[in-house]
């Protein structure tokens, strides 16, 4: 498996990472090197093996339906670059 320039641009866009045109070729090389490294895993025969979901054999822990958190609007917006009346304020986005 390998990626071309177009795929590199697409991945960057999906991840909202600005990639200059002169960086694309370099990134393509790096990504392909990583993919080639990971590709070695396909040499292992895993037919009939359940995908591993955790390194410890345990069941998922759950929580009771009780309100234990929240009501900290000051903390929630503290790091926001822009805020007003406890709203996060962002450039206009209308879909």
């Amino acid at each position, binding site marked *: 498996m390998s990626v071309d320039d177009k795929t590199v641009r*697409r991945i960057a866009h*999906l991840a*909202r990472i600005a990639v200059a045109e002169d960086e694309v070729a370099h990134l393509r090389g790096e990504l392909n090197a990583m993919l080639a490294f990971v590709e070695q895993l396909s040499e292992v025969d895993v037919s009939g093996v359940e995908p591993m*979901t*955790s390194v410890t054999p*345990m*069941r*998922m*822990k*759950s*929580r*009771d*339906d*009780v*309100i*234990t*958190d*929240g*009501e*900290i*609007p000051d*903390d*929630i*917006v503290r790091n926001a670059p*822009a805020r*007003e*009346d*406890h*709203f*996060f*304020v*962002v*450039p*206009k*986005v*209308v*879909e």
Partner: protein
Amino acid sequence: MNAPARPDKLIRGATGDWEIVIGLEIHAQVTSQAKLFSGAATAFGGEPNSHVSLVDAAMPGMLPVINAECVRQAVLTGLGLNAQIHLRSVFDRKNYFYPDLPQGYQISQYKSPVVGEGEVIVDLPDGESITVGIERLHLEQDAGKSVHDQHPTLSYVDLNRSGVALMEIVSKPDLRSSEQAKAFVTKLRSILRYLGTCDGDMEKGSLRADVNVSVRRPGEPLGTRCEIKNVNSIRFIGQAIEHEARRQVDIIEDGGTIVQETRLFDPNKGETRAMRSKEEAHDYRYFPDPDLLPLELTPDYVEDLRGQLPELPDDKKARFVRELGLSVYDADVLVAERANAAFFEAVLVKQDGSPRDAKAAANWVINELTGRLNKEGRDIAASPVSAAQLGTLLDLIGEGTISGKIAKDLFEILWSEGGDPRELVEARGLKQVTDVGAIEKVIAEIVAANPDKAAQAKEKPAMIGWFVGQVMKASGGKANPQAVNDLLKRKLGIAD
């Protein structure tokens, strides 16, 4: 899905008939105190970003812990939809960027949902029933809310809804008309409210639908579909389907082709339009969420919940018809809302536990009470007349203490003033007059005052109706109509 097209469901185009094919994705907010993966409150409204934990705001290092109640609600809903419950399901990340999605992904279930295939029986207004397949039900997080109208160049983001548990319920493309789609959503909403798993409040956004619409020539393969996002009322679902189907037929008949896209319904214009970002096809790059282990349930857990299922509308309706002798129509009306059915069932039972007359109770709940509630735009929960009061009113009619006509007056008094029905009847002299002597006296007066009509009545027994009316009027509606009728016949010499 491939049942033969029903001619009466087709829509007419310039070049022939078209069949509409509809599938729905319903997003139903799970009824719970806390969010799906955090301990923040799910309460509607509140100050901006108040019902938000650091998990919901996706602060670094925060980890989701699943709310067991949300899982229980999803499984209960699956059972209520006669669906298969998957003992093992997986949470995935659905990746996309939007300011009201701080994680940069929504935790959802993609390949392995908690609930699989099921079905819902939908009764249509014309009396026909259809079975609509359920494809799946999965749990996912709601996003926050963006407010766009506060500032010309900025949007305001409130994360109070962020992380609230939703059930996405996906139907099979089994629906063939806007009527069917509306009836399906109505039925689904009713089931959810019976189960108590979603309050079904569409105005607050607790239930919203994405509507997939395509058209085809009858018998041909499925056409290309368009998805109309986030339609938030049953009426709008109908309008959106009507408009979208017509739009697609017009395009195809003009020689065009349908482009698969996401559209929005504009309730003001009654039309659908393409969303602006269509050029950028969504690529969600789903993958299993490494922060969450698979959701594993035991057969005992599922069976225990099955045992906790309340009586659902279909069963209740069947029982009302079978055991109480109600008409299918009356039973339908009574079971549609859980609260109405509960009220009716409370009216049915006397204080000593013995049953009241079901047909009379149904009549009063459907016609007098619901009619009055609708007129004033009230919910049955806010009914000024309680089930106990209405029950006593029925007893008073049944015992012959008050006439049906007086009962309506009594109902009005109960509605506007309240009080104990028996005491009111006593205090206000509403008792039906069954005293033969008193009724005879009134009859004698009326007959004496109308000798010509009395003579006619001997020839034309139907004239008795006029006399009954006069006697009832003279007695202020309190005379027992049966007694009046009998006594009049004797007085006027009319044979039985």
